[in-house]
């Protein structure tokens, strides 16, 4: 498993290839790889986005990402999982996150990558602040994507 928080711009595909080559290697049990990459768009909620700041809670964020990947390993019997997430200053077209799952069969890889992304968005402590023509704004969770975490 690899969980990483990156402060600098990164190439998600190169990170994936490096992890596969150096850690997972040519494991002949792997039949399926499912990967998701999220990137910064230049529009959100009908406003032009010039750039973005991504904040996290060091320690807690890594813990939750690890728990989320472990849950997917257990539920879908995936062989391994990877999450790399950017923080700091980002611009449109910059990669934000890569999630990858490796498994014997495609169903489990597809489901694991999707579950990890959904859990990451609902639970992992990251916060986006967008710079638009109207100044800075903290991004609100999308309706229907709220977590079930108790609120004060």
């Amino acid at each position, binding site marked *: 498993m690899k969980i990483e928080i990156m402060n600098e711009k990164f190439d998600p595909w190169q990170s994936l290839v490096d992890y596969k080559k150096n850690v997972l290697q040519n494991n002949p049990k792997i039949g399926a790889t499912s990967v998701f990459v999220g990137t910064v768009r230049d529009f959100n909620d009908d406003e032009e986005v010039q750039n973005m700041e991504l904040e996290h*809670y060091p320690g*807690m964020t890594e813990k939750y990402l690890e728990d989320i990947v472990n849950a997917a390993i257990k539920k879908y019997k995936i062989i391994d999982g990877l999450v790399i997430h950017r923080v700091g200053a980002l611009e449109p077209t910059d990669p934000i996150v890569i999630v990858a799952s490796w498994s014997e069969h495609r169903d489990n890889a597809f489901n694991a990558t999707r579950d990890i992304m959904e859990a990451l*968005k609902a*639970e992992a*402590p*990251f*916060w986006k602040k967008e710079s638009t023509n109207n100044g800075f704004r903290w991004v609100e*969770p999308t309706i229907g994507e709220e977590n079930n975490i108790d*609120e*004060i």
Partner: protein
Amino acid sequence: MKIYVKYFASVRDIMGKDSEDLKIETSLSANELWKSLTVGKKTPIRVLVAVNHEYVDKNFKLKNGDEIAFFPPVTGG
């Protein structure tokens, strides 16, 4: 007892600081601590709370040495 408090994102903006160390006399719940810290402040409707890197509900009783964090709903990914 000693409590370490952290604020993130829009909650940090409202509190005007990212952390503070507190000495409190009696054990408080997360909610009681939040109310006492935000007296007179206009606070957001939705605030999550974590103690020692785990989400807790608002009635969680704080212990000596706990790190408690207040922040808005998360928006990563």
